[in-house]
Protein backbone atom coordinates (compact mmCIF):
# COMPACT_ATOMS: atom_id res chain seq x y z
CA UNK A 1 0.00 0.00 0.00
CA UNK A 2 3.03 2.29 -0.09
CA UNK A 3 2.08 2.76 -3.73
CA UNK A 4 -1.19 4.32 -2.68
CA UNK A 5 0.50 6.74 -0.28
CA UNK A 6 2.63 8.15 -3.09
CA UNK A 7 -0.18 7.97 -5.64
CA UNK A 8 -2.86 9.70 -3.59
CA UNK A 9 -1.10 13.08 -3.15
CA UNK A 10 -0.34 13.19 -6.88
CA UNK A 11 -3.90 12.41 -7.85
CA UNK A 12 -5.22 14.81 -5.21
CA UNK A 13 -3.38 17.61 -6.99
CA UNK A 14 -5.15 16.67 -10.22
CA UNK A 15 -8.44 16.41 -8.42
CA UNK A 16 -8.07 20.01 -7.24
CA UNK A 17 -7.75 21.10 -10.88
CA UNK A 18 -10.83 19.00 -11.69
CA UNK A 19 -12.73 20.67 -8.86
CA UNK A 20 -11.65 24.10 -10.09
CA UNK A 21 -12.92 23.37 -13.61
CA UNK A 22 -16.14 22.02 -12.10
CA UNK A 23 -16.78 24.95 -9.78
CA UNK A 24 -15.88 27.71 -12.25
CA UNK A 25 -17.96 26.10 -14.99
CA UNK A 26 -21.03 26.04 -12.73
CA UNK A 27 -20.37 29.58 -11.57
CA UNK A 28 -20.44 30.90 -15.15
CA UNK A 29 -22.74 28.50 -16.96
CA UNK A 30 -25.76 28.70 -14.65
CA UNK A 31 -26.30 32.48 -14.87
CA UNK A 32 -25.35 32.40 -18.57
CA UNK A 33 -27.79 29.54 -19.09
CA UNK A 34 -30.58 31.54 -17.45
CA UNK A 35 -29.80 34.50 -19.71
CA UNK A 36 -29.73 32.29 -22.82
CA UNK A 37 -33.04 30.69 -21.79
CA UNK A 38 -34.68 34.10 -21.48
CA UNK A 39 -33.20 35.25 -24.81
CA UNK A 40 -34.42 32.09 -26.53
CA UNK A 41 -37.94 32.97 -25.41
CA UNK A 42 -37.62 36.49 -26.80
CA UNK A 43 -40.44 37.62 -29.02
CA UNK A 44 -37.87 38.98 -31.50
CA UNK A 45 -36.63 36.57 -34.13
CA UNK A 46 -33.40 38.51 -34.48
CA UNK A 47 -32.56 37.47 -30.91
CA UNK A 48 -34.18 34.04 -30.92
CA UNK A 49 -32.56 32.69 -34.08
CA UNK A 50 -28.88 33.32 -33.23
CA UNK A 51 -29.50 31.93 -29.74
CA UNK A 52 -31.06 28.79 -31.21
CA UNK A 53 -28.07 28.42 -33.52
CA UNK A 54 -25.65 28.78 -30.63
CA UNK A 55 -27.51 26.11 -28.64
CA UNK A 56 -27.64 23.73 -31.59
CA UNK A 57 -23.88 24.04 -32.20
CA UNK A 58 -23.05 23.56 -28.52
CA UNK A 59 -25.24 20.50 -28.26
CA UNK A 60 -24.50 19.17 -31.73
CA UNK A 61 -20.70 19.03 -31.64
CA UNK A 62 -18.36 17.29 -29.18
CA UNK A 63 -17.22 19.28 -26.17
CA UNK A 64 -13.77 17.93 -26.95
CA UNK A 65 -13.83 19.73 -30.29
CA UNK A 66 -15.13 22.91 -28.67
CA UNK A 67 -12.24 22.96 -26.21
CA UNK A 68 -9.75 22.57 -29.05
CA UNK A 69 -11.54 25.20 -31.10
CA UNK A 70 -11.53 27.78 -28.29
CA UNK A 71 -7.89 27.17 -27.44
CA UNK A 72 -6.33 26.94 -30.90
CA UNK A 73 -8.97 29.03 -32.59
CA UNK A 74 -8.35 31.99 -30.33
CA UNK A 75 -4.62 31.56 -30.93
CA UNK A 76 -4.88 31.54 -34.72
CA UNK A 77 -7.41 34.34 -34.79
CA UNK A 78 -5.08 36.46 -32.66
CA UNK A 79 -2.25 35.82 -35.11
CA UNK A 80 -4.51 36.75 -37.98
CA UNK A 81 -5.92 39.87 -36.35
CA UNK A 82 -2.62 40.99 -34.91
CA UNK A 83 -4.23 41.50 -31.49
CA UNK A 84 -3.53 38.97 -28.80
CA UNK A 85 -6.76 37.63 -27.33
CA UNK A 86 -5.65 34.02 -27.19
CA UNK A 87 -6.50 31.98 -24.13
CA UNK A 88 -4.13 30.13 -21.87
CA UNK A 89 -4.94 26.48 -21.44
CA UNK A 90 -6.91 26.68 -18.23
CA UNK A 91 -9.04 29.73 -19.14
CA UNK A 92 -9.73 28.15 -22.54
CA UNK A 93 -11.11 25.09 -20.77
CA UNK A 94 -13.31 27.23 -18.51
CA UNK A 95 -14.66 29.22 -21.45
CA UNK A 96 -15.39 26.11 -23.50
CA UNK A 97 -17.05 24.29 -20.60
CA UNK A 98 -19.07 27.35 -19.56
CA UNK A 99 -20.55 28.10 -22.97
CA UNK A 100 -21.20 24.40 -23.57
CA UNK A 101 -22.94 23.80 -20.28
CA UNK A 102 -24.83 27.09 -20.52
CA UNK A 103 -26.52 25.74 -23.65
CA UNK A 104 -27.70 22.63 -21.82
CA UNK A 105 -28.76 24.55 -18.73
CA UNK A 106 -30.59 27.06 -20.94
CA UNK A 107 -32.78 24.34 -22.39
CA UNK A 108 -33.50 22.94 -18.95
CA UNK A 109 -34.36 26.41 -17.58
CA UNK A 110 -36.48 27.25 -20.62
CA UNK A 111 -38.45 24.06 -20.14
CA UNK A 112 -38.89 24.97 -16.48
CA UNK A 113 -40.01 28.53 -17.18
CA UNK A 114 -42.44 27.46 -19.90
CA UNK A 115 -43.95 24.80 -17.66
CA UNK A 116 -45.26 27.45 -15.25
CA UNK A 117 -48.98 27.88 -15.96
CA UNK A 118 -50.13 31.11 -17.60
CA UNK A 119 -52.49 31.64 -14.66
CA UNK A 120 -49.53 32.43 -12.41
CA UNK A 121 -48.60 35.38 -14.62
CA UNK A 122 -52.22 36.50 -14.83
CA UNK A 123 -52.71 36.34 -11.06
CA UNK A 124 -49.51 38.35 -10.53
CA UNK A 125 -50.63 40.86 -13.17
CA UNK A 126 -54.02 41.35 -11.52
CA UNK A 127 -52.29 41.93 -8.19
CA UNK A 128 -50.26 44.73 -9.74
CA UNK A 129 -46.85 43.06 -9.50
CA UNK A 130 -44.28 44.42 -11.95
CA UNK A 131 -42.75 42.11 -14.55
CA UNK A 132 -39.53 41.88 -12.54
CA UNK A 133 -41.42 41.11 -9.32
CA UNK A 134 -43.44 38.47 -11.14
CA UNK A 135 -40.30 36.81 -12.49
CA UNK A 136 -38.23 36.87 -9.31
CA UNK A 137 -40.95 36.29 -6.70
CA UNK A 138 -43.45 34.09 -8.49
CA UNK A 139 -41.91 32.36 -11.51
CA UNK A 140 -38.25 31.77 -10.65
CA UNK A 141 -38.84 30.11 -7.23
CA UNK A 142 -41.18 27.63 -8.90
CA UNK A 143 -38.77 27.09 -11.78
CA UNK A 144 -35.95 26.20 -9.36
CA UNK A 145 -37.99 23.35 -7.96
CA UNK A 146 -38.85 22.03 -11.39
CA UNK A 147 -35.32 22.14 -12.81
CA UNK A 148 -33.43 20.59 -9.90
CA UNK A 149 -33.67 16.94 -11.08
CA UNK A 150 -32.60 17.68 -14.66
CA UNK A 151 -29.87 20.08 -13.50
CA UNK A 152 -28.52 17.47 -11.10
CA UNK A 153 -27.99 15.22 -14.12
CA UNK A 154 -25.96 17.90 -15.87
CA UNK A 155 -23.90 18.68 -12.80
CA UNK A 156 -22.99 15.03 -12.31
CA UNK A 157 -22.07 14.68 -15.98
CA UNK A 158 -19.90 17.77 -15.63
CA UNK A 159 -17.76 16.09 -12.94
CA UNK A 160 -16.86 13.36 -15.41
CA UNK A 161 -16.60 15.68 -18.44
CA UNK A 162 -13.81 17.62 -16.74
CA UNK A 163 -11.51 14.80 -17.92
CA UNK A 164 -11.85 16.21 -21.44
CA UNK A 165 -9.63 19.12 -20.40
CA UNK A 166 -6.61 16.88 -20.96
CA UNK A 167 -7.07 17.33 -24.71
CA UNK A 168 -5.18 20.61 -24.44
CA UNK A 169 -2.87 19.24 -21.76
CA UNK A 170 -4.53 20.64 -18.66
CA UNK A 171 -3.35 18.26 -15.96
CA UNK A 172 -6.60 17.40 -14.26
CA UNK A 173 -7.29 14.17 -12.39
CA UNK A 174 -7.59 11.82 -15.34
CA UNK A 175 -4.53 13.20 -17.17
CA UNK A 176 -2.40 12.65 -14.06
CA UNK A 177 -3.80 9.18 -13.53
CA UNK A 178 -2.86 8.28 -17.10
CA UNK A 179 0.69 9.51 -16.51
CA UNK A 180 0.90 7.36 -13.40
CA UNK A 181 -0.50 4.46 -15.36
CA UNK A 182 2.56 4.65 -17.59
CA UNK A 183 4.93 5.03 -14.63
CA UNK A 184 3.42 2.11 -12.74
CA UNK A 185 2.84 0.07 -15.86
CA UNK A 186 -0.56 -0.70 -14.36
CA UNK A 187 -4.10 0.51 -14.75
CA UNK A 188 -4.35 0.71 -10.98
CA UNK A 189 -4.00 4.56 -10.91
CA UNK A 190 -6.93 4.84 -13.30
CA UNK A 191 -9.12 2.91 -10.89
CA UNK A 192 -8.07 5.14 -8.03
CA UNK A 193 -9.01 8.16 -10.17
CA UNK A 194 -12.35 6.47 -10.80
CA UNK A 195 -12.89 6.28 -7.05
CA UNK A 196 -12.30 10.03 -6.80
CA UNK A 197 -14.98 10.73 -9.45
CA UNK A 198 -17.34 8.30 -7.82
CA UNK A 199 -17.03 9.77 -4.33
CA UNK A 200 -17.47 13.30 -5.68
CA UNK A 201 -20.64 12.29 -7.48
CA UNK A 202 -21.93 10.33 -4.54
CA UNK A 203 -21.68 13.48 -2.42
CA UNK A 204 -23.37 15.52 -5.17
CA UNK A 205 -26.21 13.01 -5.47
CA UNK A 206 -26.75 13.18 -1.73
CA UNK A 207 -26.72 16.96 -1.90
CA UNK A 208 -29.32 17.05 -4.68
CA UNK A 209 -31.52 14.51 -2.93
CA UNK A 210 -31.43 16.80 0.10
CA UNK A 211 -32.31 19.86 -2.01
CA UNK A 212 -35.21 18.03 -3.65
CA UNK A 213 -36.51 17.02 -0.24
CA UNK A 214 -36.21 20.59 1.00
CA UNK A 215 -38.15 21.89 -1.99
CA UNK A 216 -40.87 19.33 -1.49
CA UNK A 217 -42.78 21.48 0.97
CA UNK A 218 -45.26 22.32 -1.78
CA UNK A 219 -46.57 20.67 -4.91
Amino acid at each position, binding site marked *: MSELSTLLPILWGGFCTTLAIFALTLLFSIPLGLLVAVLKMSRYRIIRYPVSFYISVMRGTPLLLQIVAIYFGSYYLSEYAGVDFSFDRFPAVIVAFSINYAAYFAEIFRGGIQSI*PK*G*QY*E*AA*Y*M*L*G*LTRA*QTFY*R*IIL*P*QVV*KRVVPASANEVITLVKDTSLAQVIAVTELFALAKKQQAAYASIYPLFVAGVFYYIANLLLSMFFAYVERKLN*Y*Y*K
Partner: protein
Amino acid sequence: MDFANNQSVITNGASQDTSPILEVKHLKKSFGDLHVLKDISLELNAGEVLSIIGPSGSGKSTLLRCLTQLETFEAGEVRVDGKNLVVSALNEPIKYAPANVLREIRLSTGLVFQNFNLFPHLTVLQNLTLAPIRVLGIPREEARATGRRLLKQMGLEGKEKSYPCELSGGQQQRVSIARALALKPKILFFDEPTSALDPELTGEVLKIIKQLAEDRMTMVIVTHEMAFARDVANKVLFMDQGVVVEQGTPDFVFNQSQNKRLSAFLERFSRN
Protein backbone atom coordinates in the same frame (compact mmCIF):
# COMPACT_ATOMS: atom_id res chain seq x y z
CA MET B 1 -69.19 37.77 9.71
CA ASP B 2 -67.87 41.22 9.41
CA PHE B 3 -66.78 42.84 6.22
CA ALA B 4 -67.29 46.32 7.60
CA ASN B 5 -63.64 47.15 7.35
CA ASN B 6 -63.52 46.46 3.63
CA GLN B 7 -66.89 47.96 3.19
CA SER B 8 -65.81 51.41 4.30
CA VAL B 9 -63.20 51.38 1.56
CA ILE B 10 -65.47 49.87 -1.05
CA THR B 11 -68.20 52.48 -0.83
CA ASN B 12 -65.97 55.46 -0.17
CA GLY B 13 -66.06 57.88 -3.04
CA ALA B 14 -68.51 55.77 -4.96
CA SER B 15 -71.39 56.64 -2.67
CA GLN B 16 -70.96 60.36 -3.18
CA ASP B 17 -71.78 60.44 -6.86
CA THR B 18 -74.54 58.57 -8.54
CA SER B 19 -72.75 57.61 -11.75
CA PRO B 20 -72.21 53.87 -12.21
CA ILE B 21 -68.98 52.43 -10.86
CA LEU B 22 -68.66 50.28 -13.99
CA GLU B 23 -69.71 51.44 -17.43
CA VAL B 24 -69.14 49.50 -20.63
CA LYS B 25 -70.20 50.90 -23.98
CA HIS B 26 -70.19 49.16 -27.36
CA LEU B 27 -67.30 46.86 -26.52
CA LYS B 28 -66.09 44.76 -29.43
CA LYS B 29 -63.50 42.01 -29.41
CA SER B 30 -62.41 39.42 -31.94
CA PHE B 31 -59.85 36.68 -32.18
CA GLY B 32 -58.88 36.85 -35.84
CA ASP B 33 -62.08 36.46 -37.85
CA LEU B 34 -64.05 35.26 -34.86
CA HIS B 35 -66.11 38.04 -33.33
CA VAL B 36 -66.30 37.01 -29.69
CA LEU B 37 -67.88 40.18 -28.34
CA LYS B 38 -70.01 42.03 -30.84
CA ASP B 39 -71.40 45.07 -29.09
CA ILE B 40 -71.51 44.84 -25.33
CA SER B 41 -72.88 47.63 -23.15
CA LEU B 42 -73.62 47.43 -19.47
CA GLU B 43 -73.72 49.48 -16.30
CA LEU B 44 -73.29 48.62 -12.67
CA ASN B 45 -73.75 50.79 -9.59
CA ALA B 46 -71.56 50.57 -6.52
CA GLY B 47 -72.75 47.94 -4.09
CA GLU B 48 -74.59 45.99 -6.76
CA VAL B 49 -74.02 42.48 -8.00
CA LEU B 50 -74.20 41.56 -11.67
CA SER B 51 -74.50 37.93 -12.73
CA ILE B 52 -73.50 37.04 -16.27
CA ILE B 53 -75.01 33.83 -17.61
CA GLY B 54 -75.01 32.18 -20.99
CA PRO B 55 -73.92 29.08 -22.87
CA SER B 56 -70.25 28.09 -23.18
CA GLY B 57 -68.52 30.11 -25.86
CA SER B 58 -70.93 33.01 -25.54
CA GLY B 59 -68.07 35.36 -24.61
CA LYS B 60 -68.77 35.73 -20.88
CA SER B 61 -65.25 34.97 -19.76
CA THR B 62 -63.73 36.99 -22.57
CA LEU B 63 -65.80 39.98 -21.49
CA LEU B 64 -64.51 39.58 -17.95
CA ARG B 65 -60.96 39.29 -19.22
CA CYS B 66 -61.38 42.46 -21.27
CA LEU B 67 -62.68 44.38 -18.27
CA THR B 68 -59.79 43.16 -16.10
CA GLN B 69 -57.22 43.96 -18.82
CA LEU B 70 -56.16 40.36 -19.35
CA GLU B 71 -57.32 40.76 -22.95
CA THR B 72 -57.34 43.80 -25.18
CA PHE B 73 -60.39 44.76 -27.22
CA GLU B 74 -60.74 46.58 -30.52
CA ALA B 75 -63.47 49.08 -29.81
CA GLY B 76 -65.61 50.45 -27.04
CA GLU B 77 -65.43 52.42 -23.84
CA VAL B 78 -64.88 51.13 -20.34
CA ARG B 79 -65.06 53.33 -17.27
CA VAL B 80 -64.19 51.98 -13.84
CA ASP B 81 -64.88 54.18 -10.84
CA GLY B 82 -64.69 57.29 -13.02
CA LYS B 83 -61.45 56.31 -14.76
CA ASN B 84 -61.39 55.61 -18.47
CA LEU B 85 -59.65 52.48 -19.66
CA VAL B 86 -59.79 53.81 -23.21
CA VAL B 87 -59.05 57.41 -24.07
CA SER B 88 -60.08 57.39 -27.73
CA ALA B 89 -63.61 58.30 -28.79
CA LEU B 90 -65.95 55.56 -29.96
CA ASN B 91 -65.49 56.25 -33.66
CA GLU B 92 -61.68 56.52 -33.48
CA PRO B 93 -59.12 53.70 -33.52
CA ILE B 94 -58.78 52.45 -29.96
CA LYS B 95 -56.18 54.01 -27.71
CA TYR B 96 -55.69 52.79 -24.16
CA ALA B 97 -55.03 55.06 -21.19
CA PRO B 98 -51.39 55.53 -20.07
CA ALA B 99 -49.81 52.58 -18.24
CA ASN B 100 -50.05 54.18 -14.80
CA VAL B 101 -53.79 54.75 -15.20
CA LEU B 102 -54.29 51.19 -16.45
CA ARG B 103 -52.42 49.94 -13.42
CA GLU B 104 -54.53 52.07 -11.07
CA ILE B 105 -57.67 50.68 -12.67
CA ARG B 106 -56.26 47.15 -12.44
CA LEU B 107 -55.62 47.57 -8.73
CA SER B 108 -59.21 48.66 -8.22
CA THR B 109 -60.52 45.54 -9.99
CA GLY B 110 -59.93 42.20 -8.30
CA LEU B 111 -60.32 38.93 -10.18
CA VAL B 112 -61.12 35.50 -8.80
CA PHE B 113 -60.10 32.85 -11.32
CA GLN B 114 -61.82 29.59 -12.10
CA ASN B 115 -58.62 27.71 -11.26
CA PHE B 116 -57.70 29.86 -8.24
CA ASN B 117 -54.15 30.54 -9.50
CA LEU B 118 -52.78 30.74 -6.00
CA PHE B 119 -48.99 30.91 -5.70
CA PRO B 120 -48.10 27.33 -4.71
CA HIS B 121 -44.66 28.13 -3.25
CA LEU B 122 -46.07 30.68 -0.80
CA THR B 123 -48.06 30.04 2.35
CA VAL B 124 -51.70 31.08 2.50
CA LEU B 125 -50.80 34.20 4.44
CA GLN B 126 -47.92 35.06 2.09
CA ASN B 127 -50.34 34.75 -0.84
CA LEU B 128 -52.46 37.39 0.86
CA THR B 129 -49.69 39.77 1.88
CA LEU B 130 -47.36 39.69 -1.15
CA ALA B 131 -49.17 42.33 -3.20
CA PRO B 132 -50.17 44.61 -0.31
CA ILE B 133 -46.54 44.70 0.86
CA ARG B 134 -44.77 44.79 -2.52
CA VAL B 135 -47.28 46.73 -4.59
CA LEU B 136 -49.07 49.03 -2.14
CA GLY B 137 -46.13 49.37 0.26
CA ILE B 138 -48.22 48.53 3.30
CA PRO B 139 -46.05 47.71 6.35
CA ARG B 140 -45.55 43.96 6.80
CA GLU B 141 -47.27 43.69 10.18
CA GLU B 142 -50.28 45.64 9.02
CA ALA B 143 -50.59 43.51 5.88
CA ARG B 144 -50.35 40.35 7.96
CA ALA B 145 -53.04 41.59 10.35
CA THR B 146 -55.35 42.37 7.42
CA GLY B 147 -54.55 38.97 5.93
CA ARG B 148 -55.41 37.17 9.15
CA ARG B 149 -58.67 39.09 9.46
CA LEU B 150 -59.63 38.20 5.88
CA LEU B 151 -58.86 34.54 6.51
CA LYS B 152 -61.08 34.63 9.56
CA GLN B 153 -63.86 36.13 7.46
CA MET B 154 -63.39 33.32 4.94
CA GLY B 155 -63.64 30.74 7.70
CA LEU B 156 -60.00 29.79 7.26
CA GLU B 157 -58.62 30.61 10.67
CA GLY B 158 -55.50 28.62 11.47
CA LYS B 159 -54.62 28.03 7.80
CA GLU B 160 -52.12 30.92 7.66
CA LYS B 161 -49.09 28.69 7.43
CA SER B 162 -50.59 26.05 5.17
CA TYR B 163 -49.57 25.79 1.54
CA PRO B 164 -52.30 25.87 -1.12
CA CYS B 165 -51.69 22.20 -2.00
CA GLU B 166 -52.68 21.25 1.54
CA LEU B 167 -56.15 22.78 1.15
CA SER B 168 -59.32 21.53 -0.52
CA GLY B 169 -60.50 23.22 -3.70
CA GLY B 170 -63.16 25.17 -1.83
CA GLN B 171 -60.62 26.39 0.70
CA GLN B 172 -58.22 27.37 -2.09
CA GLN B 173 -60.93 29.36 -3.81
CA ARG B 174 -61.72 31.15 -0.55
CA VAL B 175 -58.04 31.98 -0.16
CA SER B 176 -58.03 33.43 -3.65
CA ILE B 177 -61.08 35.56 -2.82
CA ALA B 178 -59.23 36.78 0.28
CA ARG B 179 -56.15 37.50 -1.83
CA ALA B 180 -58.20 39.67 -4.17
CA LEU B 181 -59.90 41.44 -1.25
CA ALA B 182 -56.54 42.19 0.38
CA LEU B 183 -55.99 44.92 -2.22
CA LYS B 184 -59.37 46.45 -1.29
CA PRO B 185 -60.74 46.45 -4.84
CA LYS B 186 -63.69 48.59 -5.84
CA ILE B 187 -65.09 45.82 -8.03
CA LEU B 188 -64.54 42.12 -7.64
CA PHE B 189 -64.86 39.95 -10.76
CA PHE B 190 -65.48 36.21 -10.58
CA ASP B 191 -64.75 33.98 -13.57
CA GLU B 192 -66.80 30.83 -12.98
CA PRO B 193 -65.57 30.60 -9.38
CA THR B 194 -67.08 27.19 -8.70
CA SER B 195 -66.62 25.45 -12.05
CA ALA B 196 -63.41 23.70 -10.94
CA LEU B 197 -64.94 22.51 -7.66
CA ASP B 198 -66.63 19.29 -6.64
CA PRO B 199 -70.36 19.88 -6.11
CA GLU B 200 -70.07 19.46 -2.34
CA LEU B 201 -67.45 22.23 -2.18
CA THR B 202 -69.40 24.66 -4.36
CA GLY B 203 -71.68 25.68 -1.51
CA GLU B 204 -68.98 26.99 0.79
CA VAL B 205 -67.67 29.33 -1.92
CA LEU B 206 -71.12 30.55 -2.91
CA LYS B 207 -71.89 31.24 0.75
CA ILE B 208 -68.85 33.50 0.97
CA ILE B 209 -69.86 35.38 -2.18
CA LYS B 210 -73.38 35.83 -0.80
CA GLN B 211 -71.93 37.29 2.37
CA LEU B 212 -69.87 39.72 0.31
CA ALA B 213 -73.05 40.70 -1.52
CA GLU B 214 -74.84 41.33 1.76
CA ASP B 215 -71.95 43.59 2.72
CA ARG B 216 -72.55 45.52 -0.52
CA MET B 217 -69.35 44.53 -2.28
CA THR B 218 -69.65 45.42 -5.96
CA MET B 219 -69.28 42.22 -7.92
CA VAL B 220 -69.51 40.86 -11.44
CA ILE B 221 -69.97 37.10 -11.48
CA VAL B 222 -69.77 34.82 -14.49
CA THR B 223 -71.43 31.61 -13.42
CA HIS B 224 -73.25 28.47 -14.47
CA GLU B 225 -74.99 28.23 -11.09
CA MET B 226 -78.40 29.53 -12.12
CA ALA B 227 -80.07 29.52 -8.71
CA PHE B 228 -77.07 31.34 -7.29
CA ALA B 229 -77.03 33.87 -10.15
CA ARG B 230 -80.68 34.62 -9.48
CA ASP B 231 -80.42 34.86 -5.68
CA VAL B 232 -77.23 36.88 -5.33
CA ALA B 233 -77.64 39.41 -8.13
CA ASN B 234 -79.32 42.77 -8.45
CA LYS B 235 -78.92 42.46 -12.17
CA VAL B 236 -78.60 39.53 -14.53
CA LEU B 237 -77.16 39.64 -18.01
CA PHE B 238 -77.70 36.84 -20.51
CA MET B 239 -75.13 36.55 -23.28
CA ASP B 240 -75.19 34.39 -26.36
CA GLN B 241 -72.80 34.42 -29.33
CA GLY B 242 -71.10 37.60 -28.27
CA VAL B 243 -74.12 39.77 -27.71
CA VAL B 244 -76.17 40.73 -24.67
CA VAL B 245 -79.47 39.07 -25.45
CA GLU B 246 -81.30 40.13 -22.32
CA GLN B 247 -80.56 42.01 -19.14
CA GLY B 248 -82.51 43.17 -16.17
CA THR B 249 -83.52 42.22 -12.67
CA PRO B 250 -83.24 38.54 -11.74
CA ASP B 251 -87.02 38.31 -11.68
CA PHE B 252 -87.28 39.76 -15.18
CA VAL B 253 -84.57 37.57 -16.70
CA PHE B 254 -85.56 34.33 -15.02
CA ASN B 255 -89.34 34.65 -14.89
CA GLN B 256 -90.74 37.33 -17.17
CA SER B 257 -88.59 37.60 -20.25
CA GLN B 258 -90.19 36.21 -23.40
CA ASN B 259 -86.87 35.96 -25.23
CA LYS B 260 -86.64 32.65 -27.08
CA ARG B 261 -82.87 32.14 -26.82
CA LEU B 262 -82.98 32.85 -23.11
CA SER B 263 -85.87 30.51 -22.41
CA ALA B 264 -84.24 27.77 -24.51
CA PHE B 265 -81.05 28.22 -22.48
CA LEU B 266 -82.84 28.14 -19.13
CA GLU B 267 -84.86 25.15 -20.30
CA ARG B 268 -81.66 23.24 -21.12
CA PHE B 269 -80.30 24.08 -17.72
CA SER B 270 -83.30 22.99 -15.73
CA ARG B 271 -83.32 19.69 -17.64
CA ASN B 272 -79.68 18.91 -16.78
